[in-house]
């Protein structure tokens, strides 16, 4: 039996119970932005054009996931902005791959927030 801990980034053994019988599990793909930063300094020497944004997403299941925003920039981020998973087709020396990124989530979560506001107004 494993302890059910969800781990990210990849580790050799569970940080919680120490077992190494790990398996991949599909996440909901939903989360909230809990921190973010913009790279102005060109650490990658032109490989990634600056400035560019990165976000730290708290997945619905708990883990924190470092990624990039898709379709929005740091200027419009508010703490706990809802986001959902998207994929960006990229290429590196090993070939083409799908990079997990996050786009603004204007789905059910926002509707739920609307309901709360309405009930407060009544």
């Amino acid at each position, binding site marked *: 039996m494993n302890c059910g801990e969800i781990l990210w*980034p*990849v580790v050799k053994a569970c*940080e*919680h119970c120490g077992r190494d019988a790990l398996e991949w599990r599909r996440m909901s793909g939903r989360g909230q932005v*809990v*921190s*973010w*930063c*913009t*790279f*102005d*300094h060109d*650490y*990658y*020497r032109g*490989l*990634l054009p600056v*400035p*560019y944004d*990165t976000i*730290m997403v708290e997945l619905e299941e708990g883990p*924190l996931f*470092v*990624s*990039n925003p898709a379709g929005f920039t*740091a200027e419009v981020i508010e*703490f706990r902005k809802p986001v959902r998973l998207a994929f960006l087709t*990229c290429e590196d020396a090993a070939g083409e791959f799908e*990079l997990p*990124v996050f786009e603004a989530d204007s789905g059910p979560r926002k509707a739920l927030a609307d309901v709360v506001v309405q009930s407060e107004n009544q």
Partner: protein
Amino acid sequence: MAAPQPKMPPSAAELSCKAAIVGVGETDFAADYRAWRARGPGFEAPEVEGLAACAFERALEDSGLARSEIDGLSVSFLYGGPTAPEVAQMLGLKPRYMIDNGGIMAGPLPVACAAVASGECDTIAMVYAVTPRSLARKFGGEPMAGTAAPPSYYYFHPWGWSSQAAHWAYIWRYYQNEFGATEADLGAVAIQLRNNAIMNSNAIMQTPLSIEDYLASRYIVRPLRLLDLCLVNDGGVCLIVRRADRTRHLRHAPVLVAGWGESKVRSKKMHTLVRERLAPQIQEAGDQAFSMAGMGVSHVQHFECYDAATIHLIGQFEGFGFAAPGEGLEFCKAGGMAVGGRMPVNTAGGMLSGAYMHGWNHVAEITKQLRHEATGRQIEGVEISLFSLAQTDQVHPILFKRGVA
């Protein structure tokens, strides 16, 4: 490559105050930095051998001991350098105990103290030197060939999230949201450390800093600016550590190493770093150090803190309980971190405005303060100093106590 760090000795009360710093030597951080910036005719980039030798000779002179009394040697060249036997030959030493010990402060000092306590040597020279500026060392992006990088440096490469500064940037953005702090609030830390540096003639940064200067400085990883991040410079530091029972009648008051601790993040690294600012590790390692020394945090009169970034200093300051979470910046703005304040911090300018010597500069400053020889910036009557080294995933505090001269 730097040698792997040997295991930290236990935080055992019987090792408390068994060894003391009796000599300290530093290279000319400010003059060497200016020379590198100017790079005029005849400029030669410094090498670790020369820096280490300079720091050692100054420390030996400072201690008043004879070269032949040095029977231990610990060398720390973070970005590569000669081995301990090679350094012994270069410095004309015949040590009976030698160790190559990583580079960053906190680890090497307890190991040296334990060697002294167990009788492997009586007087150990600890030599450290680095040349990141001359090597044009990068602190982010693709890892440099042949260098080990912490996992957080390469896990997130696909998203371009790589650099020391990015860790602190995430912390600061989270902190801003949690406590409503502003960029000008954080600027107070850079200004305070600059004010401290101005009282230290060997500090690299000597120009007074205003909040306008701070807010006009360029972003590196937004919301952090150039002035939120530590310097990069070449230099060396040497500490001479001796059996505490052989420190009477020396040139200076001995500075006893009273306690140390070590705590590494075991799970949820990003959560612990960004959202807790390493508070669980600070608590755990701090408890070890204070318990070993038989002291409490209320005994601390001076705090030297690994200031890789302004916000990282605040995280440690609050983590040790010198201010409540969210109140560290107000403490700083009210002058509490100045010499004469409620808890003076990084009185030589730290790594933000003094010199980036991986914590060795902080221990050198503690030595001067506890000897009561920190000319122009002396904390009146200081007897106990705390050094905190926090990296992105581990915390190593060391407690120091002024001994009897």
